[in-house]
């Protein structure tokens, strides 16, 4: 019997091969894209799950209820970790963690490395097993270092790494370390990344700030005792906070901070490390946290596409069911039971689904590389072979066959035997279900089209908005670990003085946008001015900064080597001037960096977007204080020959630093790089919209074929009665166009809600215009009309005699 089912199913599928090919294509595309999407999502959610004690590890951050709103910050003072462990009994292990690039020297070998500064507890908390060395003792000495297998291979080649001495140059300090452990390479889904682990005591400024509770520079992670419940943490930690953060609380109170529900103005809180990969809320975690929006929108779009493909399947099967009504009738007279018929149709569904899955997985292997590049995904097809994923595929497969196969089968089985045998199958009725499903398909498609257009608008707005400085002709060169920034700036100035391409050279502590070095830093400082706290971003710049970046000077002057006392001068932006209030600010002194070195304002510049357009322009103060290092050199070149100038400056750089990489990039590249995740989201929307439309149109095409078959006689009669081709095409398209229109209108509120929500995350954003909705609707209507026209025109120009004779 089973064999028989398959045989008949095969013949039936072959007979309707055009239909089934459409069906398989649609479903295969959906399978391929869902596989890629769900693997990606799984990967994102699998971050850090290899740590055995993941559920007991938390990151500590502080919450300040400032008058302007709640501010979360994960930067901790150096003495905090040990005090926390000593005074909060539930803490089992605690580690501070800081990150920095460095150059590792071994013999003649010099290798760049990612240095992680941690406490000895680090190896006990996290599952980074050592292949050589003792886990408990590896970081017990001050000059111990643990390196990964990969780094060991780079530094030592095939030679043993254990007990070798390496020199690490980080933050312009050279120190020798003894390799006491080699760690197994960690998986790619680890938030914590490092080449070398060293003791936290080597972190920059450690000795100076060892007992300072006001300087905050790194994050703190803690493992709690088994069964610990973090619910009452903020209550239990109150006395600790009052003891060590009294200064903060006093300042906040003075500025009018309002206590939260627990009566706290300033408190410590815990963020579970399991959620680390999605924790972009507390400002600074291990690794690059991403917004949950990204995997979630992927899941939503994956489900949309699967749903649309299933709807196709149902509509196609129901439509094809009409042509098979007679077969069902005959089988019933031959004694077929309901379940036997259902099984027969279900077998057909399974075969189609199976073929789709196989084709879909093949598509997957073809597309995976492009997909990985486009969405920065680190998935591999080998992940499919994990038992959980195999089970997932089987469940999804069965679910799809059940949903998409059962309803059409039931429809067919329900046909009235006698009517069917008389040839009186009611084919003309469009069916509420089919219409509903079509509306759902096109609602989702239009929704995605609208999202595509709006994200695209916003992105082009972001890249075209004037930022208040020159971003096309200014090159930003990260200095890196090989040189001291101020020296490098001086050398580059001299080197480029006679370069005819170069207009001016300057340097700064912060970059503009996100450079090739990928790092971003910011420094926020508060001080008391006229009895209240003023908070400002701090930027260390050098001579000619304003000139190099084409920032508009409103008042005063910029730093100039001709003036002797410029190291105590300040240049502020408009927002800062507004924050300070009052007129004639030039010459007034501000007690930045404590009271010891009062500085005076020498210039005010027009506001420029020194942060991404997600944020408003906040108060900014620019100084030439030597406490901050120059990290980036800015070179403004003459317009016209940017490529030539780039190569020119590159060769200059290499003459000065033959071993250092030249990671320069133009400022507009840097600003674009700030919006990578937005671009990725828009990429997701575009691909989703295209797929959704293609699959929906395949379904519409198939349905229009069926409709033309069913209304063949009617079309013939109408033609005989004098209808013209256009009239018939319009008649056949009309019903569908109405459905598409309804679908589009249904999608408007959802699209508006979703997109205005998304736009909220930008301080600078486009408005949602009505024409976006109109355009999307028009697009959906046109695509639907063209799809239907293939069939309707063919039917309309056919000779009516043929269709009438066949009756």
């Amino acid at each position, binding site marked *: *019997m089973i064999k*028989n089912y398959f045989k*008949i199913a095969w013949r039936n599928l072959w007979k309707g091969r055009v239909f089934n090919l459409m069906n398989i294509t649609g479903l295969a595309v959906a399978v391929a894209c869902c596989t890629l999407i769900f693997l990606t999502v799984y990967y994102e959610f699998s971050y850090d799950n290899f740590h055995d004690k993941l559920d007991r590890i938390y990151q500590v951050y502080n919450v300040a209820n400032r008058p302007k709103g709640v501010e979360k910050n994960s930067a901790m003072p150096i003495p905090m970790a040990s005090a926390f462990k000593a005074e909060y009994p539930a803490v089992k292990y605690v580690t501070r963690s800081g990150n920095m690039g460095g150059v590792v020297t071994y013999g003649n070998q010099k290798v760049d490395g990612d240095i992680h500064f941690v406490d000895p507890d680090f190896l006990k908390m996290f599952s980074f097993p050592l292949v050589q060395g003792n886990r408990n003792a590896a970081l017990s000495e001050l000059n111990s270092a643990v390196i990964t297998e990969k780094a060991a291979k780079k530094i030592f080649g095939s030679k043993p790494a254990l007990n070798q001495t390496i020199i690490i140059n980080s933050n312009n300090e050279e120190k020798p370390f003894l390799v006491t452990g080699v760690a197994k390479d960690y998986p790619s889904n680890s938030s914590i990344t490092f080449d070398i682990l060293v003791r936290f005591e080597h972190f920059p400024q450690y000795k100076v700030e060892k007992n300072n509770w006001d300087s905050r520079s790194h994050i703190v992670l803690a493992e709690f005792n088994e069964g610990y419940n973090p619910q009452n943490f903020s209550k239990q930690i109150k006395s600790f906070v009052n003891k060590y953060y009294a200064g903060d609380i006093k300042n906040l109170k003075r500025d009018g901070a309002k206590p939260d529900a627990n009566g706290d103005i300033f408190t410590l809180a815990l963020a579970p490390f399991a959620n680390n990969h999605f924790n972009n809320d507390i400002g600074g975690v291990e690794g690059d946290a991403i917004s949950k929006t990204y995997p979630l929108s992927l899941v939503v779009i994956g489900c949309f596409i699967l749903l649309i493909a299933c709807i196709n399947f149902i509509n196609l099967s129901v439509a094809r069911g009409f042509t098979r009504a007679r*077969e069902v009738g005959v*089988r019933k007279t*031959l*004694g077929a039971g309901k379940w036997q018929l259902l099984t027969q149709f279900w077998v057909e569904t399974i075969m189609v689904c199976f073929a789709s899955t196989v084709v879909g997985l093949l598509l997957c292997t073809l597309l995976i590389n492009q997909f990985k590049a486009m969405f920065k995904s680190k998935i591999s097809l080998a992940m499919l072979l994990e038992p959980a994923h195999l089970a997932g595929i089987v469940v999804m497969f069965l679910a799809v066959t059940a949903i998409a196969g059962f309803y059409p089968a039931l429809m067919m089985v329900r046909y009235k035997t*006698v009517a069917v045998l008389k040839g009186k199958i009611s084919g003309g009725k469009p069916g509420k279900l089919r219409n509903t499903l079509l509306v759902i398909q096109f609602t989702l498609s239009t929704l995605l089209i609208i999202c595509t257009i709006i994200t695209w608008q916003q992105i082009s707005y972001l890249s075209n908005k004037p930022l208040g400085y020159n971003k096309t002709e200014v090159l930003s060169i990260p200095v890196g670990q090989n040189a001291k920034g101020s020296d490098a700036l001086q050398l580059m100035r001299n080197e480029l003085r006679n370069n005819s391409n170069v207009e001016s050279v300057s340097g700064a502590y912060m970059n503009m946008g996100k450079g090739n070095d990928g790092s971003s830093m910011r420094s926020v400082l508060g001080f008391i001015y006229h009895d209240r706290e003023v908070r400002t971003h701090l930027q260390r710049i050098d001579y000619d900064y304003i000139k190099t970046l084409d920032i508009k000077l409103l008042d005063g002057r910029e730093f100039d080597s001709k003036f002797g006392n410029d190291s105590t001068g300040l240049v502020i932006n408009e927002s800062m001037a507004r924050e300070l209030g009052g007129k004639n600010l030039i010459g007034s002194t501000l007690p930045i960096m404590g009271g010891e070195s009062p500085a005076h304002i020498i210039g005010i510049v027009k506001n420029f977007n020194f942060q991404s357009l997600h944020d408003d322009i906040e108060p900014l103060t620019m100084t030439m204080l030597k406490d901050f290092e120059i990290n980036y050199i800015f070179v403004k070149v003459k317009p016209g020959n940017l490529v030539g100038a780039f190569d020119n400056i590159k060769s200059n750089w290499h003459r000065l630093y033959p071993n250092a990489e030249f990671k320069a990039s133009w400022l507009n590249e840097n600003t674009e790089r700030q919006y990578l995740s937005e671009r990725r989201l828009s990429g997701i929307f575009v691909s989703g919209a295209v797929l959704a439309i293609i699959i929906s149109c395949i379904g519409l095409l198939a349905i229009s074929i069926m409709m033309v078959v069913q209304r063949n006689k009617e079309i013939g009669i109408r033609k005989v009665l004098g209808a013209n081709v256009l009239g018939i095409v319009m008649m056949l398209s009309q019903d569908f166009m109405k459905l598409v229109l309804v679908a589009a209108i249904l999608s408007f509120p959802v699209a508006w809600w979703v997109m205005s929500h998304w736009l909220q995350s930008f301080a600078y954003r486009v408005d949602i215009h009505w024409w976006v909705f109109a355009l999307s609707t028009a697009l959906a209507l046109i695509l639907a009309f063209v799809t239907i026209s293939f069939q309707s025109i063919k039917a309309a120009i056919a000779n009516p005699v043929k269709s009438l004779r066949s009756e």
Partner: protein
Amino acid sequence: MLSLKQVSKYYNTGSNKTYVLNKVDLDVDQGEFVSIMGPSGSGKSTLLNIIGMLDQPSEGYMYFLNEPVHQLKEKQRSALYKQNIGFVFQAYHLIDELTVYENIETPLLYQDVKSAERKALVADALDRFNIVGKKDLFPAQLSGGQQQLVGIARALISKPKLLLADEPTGNLNSKQGEEIMELFKKLNQEDKVTIIQVTHSEKNAQYGSRIINLLDGKIDSTVIL
């Protein structure tokens, strides 16, 4: 073997009932060959469909092999039908996707007959109707007469006690029609199969043992040959 008591079939058209069959009483004995005749719309096919349990009467009782069909549940009715009734159609109604062999085999599949037994039975039928050479052809490759022969072979494969035929020669030319009627007669006389056929042709009706004339949903007259 078959007994209909006051069987009616009507449709509601607005507030009126349109009767297709109006209180029909009919008894058919084992071994009979009954022909139902009448003009178009007299209810012939409806009567046959009710007898064949493809359709259900609006009113009345029906007994088949002493079972009260009107009281049976769907499942029991289906079982009774499967084992005892074979159907032959005017339009043959063979399944296009199946070969001659498979078409004949299908009823056995639905009765869960074992594979070996199925083979033997189908081979037997092919032999008996002289269509062994055509067993791997599809219906579209056969002439009308040959298709109807397959239809009859299929109807008889599960050895039904009652064979129902709805204008079996309606789509055939006169020579093919004659052959089919000769076959029916032989089946009735030699194999003792009870046959009820609906026909328009006076000549074909003569092959049977009784003719029932229907008019406007009622039995108008009965002729015993």
